[in-house]
């Protein structure tokens, strides 16, 4: 047998073995599926989603609000920043979020903190989807209002009058929130939080934890 044929057979065995091994013994297939194929890559499309900051009641995937949200809504609105380990726009936005809420965290952290925002209480969550609990991970599609499936995603959940009762409602912004400058990004996030807080102050008396 020619040397090249031996090399070819050896390579095929090594490559196939390693490939099948990775498929069977690692999560690479699911990781690639979840983090690349099923997620809108803002870097690849060279576009930022336009943030439409209207508050909606219907969750994005029609599933109920998670327990940690419903419970915390009794004491204040909830701000959630979703990110992943590898996310260039998340790295750009993280310092702005830290500055707004006076919090510190590493990008791989998943953090919950009750913070003071201009004298009001806000439940702050920094959720890294690569390290989140199942409940936190499941909350991402619930609040993916515009079905972008991309990170970073910023969500404020508050309460508002709806069909005779006070119900949770939310809005979401994505990527660099459609703003070119750091000031613009900070301003948009602050506007979003202010709107959420105003709604909360107006309607909190009527909210009942189910």
């Amino acid at each position: 047998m020619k040397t090249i044929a031996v090399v070819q057979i050896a390579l095929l065995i090594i490559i196939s073995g390693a490939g099948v091994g990775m498929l069977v013994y690692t999560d690479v297939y699911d990781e690639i599926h979840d983090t690349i194929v099923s997620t809108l890559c803002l870097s690849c499309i060279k576009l930022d989603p336009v943030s439409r900051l209207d508050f909606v009641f219907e969750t994005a995937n029609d599933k109920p609000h998670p327990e940690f949200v419903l419970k915390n809504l009794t004491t204040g609105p909830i701000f959630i920043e979703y990110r992943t380990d590898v996310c260039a726009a998340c790295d750009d936005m993280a310092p702005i979020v830290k500055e707004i809420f006076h919090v510190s965290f590493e990008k791989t952290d998943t953090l919950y903190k009750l913070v003071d925002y201009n004298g009001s209480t806000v439940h702050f969550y920094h959720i890294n989807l690569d390290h989140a609990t199942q409940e936190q991970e499941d909350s991402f599609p619930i609040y993916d209002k515009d079905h972008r499936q991309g990170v970073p995603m910023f969500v404020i959940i508050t309460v508002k009058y709806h069909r005779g009762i006070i119900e949770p409602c939310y809005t979401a912004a994505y990527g660099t929130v459609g703003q070119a400058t750091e000031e613009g990004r900070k301003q948009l996030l602050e506007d979003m939080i202010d709107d959420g807080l105003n709604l909360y102050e107006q309607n909190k008396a009527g909210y009942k934890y189910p």
Partner: protein
Amino acid sequence: MNLRFKRLISQVFFLFFTNLGFKIENVFPGIKTGFCYPLFLCHACPAATSACPLRAIEIGVFKGNWNWRFILWPILIVSFVGVVTGRAICGWACPIGLLQRVTGKVPQKLKKKYPVLKKIGQLRIEPFFRYIKYILFLGLVVIIPIYIGFMFTDVCPIGFLVGTIPISVLDPGGFTPNEFYYIALTIFVLFIILIFIIERGWCRYFCPIGAMFAPFNKISIYYINVNKDECVHCNACSLVCPMAIDIPNMNRDPECILCGKCIDKCPKNVISFERSI
């Protein structure tokens, strides 16, 4: 059925097969997998079924946070296909190859009309231009992401073609250009000009996936063989080669995309597909 037609069927089949991810409400859920394409197509395309191997590698090395699974998985997929077929995937499966096949007649006509374009291919430094794709692969896909951050995907013209344009059309007003948009648009325009003035210009000089596949031509199971003893050096093969290879003197050339145009053209039938196992 001649090779030209067989290749067209194969390219159309792969174009369809690689774009089954498109979701149609209540009709077709869309197929999204966890594989990487062994060809050039962007997962940002709304119809994409798999991931771009370059993006997976970029994520794997991003800012020195080594994720060996994201590095090894695309390399294994490309290597497997490479060992079996060499760079045939570029000629027989890649949708960007199909696009350049469609535009390929234009550079052929322009070359006849404007001799200066013919001279580009005859420049003594032209073979060195072919190393650009290896530099792009190592520089923009591997080294820059390690030290700075994403770069190739931010400016990739294929991402612009199959991602940016369809998404802008499907969701008008839903997105706004980011900081790389106009750079990427410029590169995309240059890409379009390139494929209209140089046949397979992208594959020859710039394709990083082609750079990944090229070394496998040296050891692939399938390859194109020239019977040098019977070759009369008429150069009919070289004249039709879309990759502008000196075919009579070729020996498992890394640039060969196994399109088989030379086989169809050879008047002496001394060029053939070979299988070494």
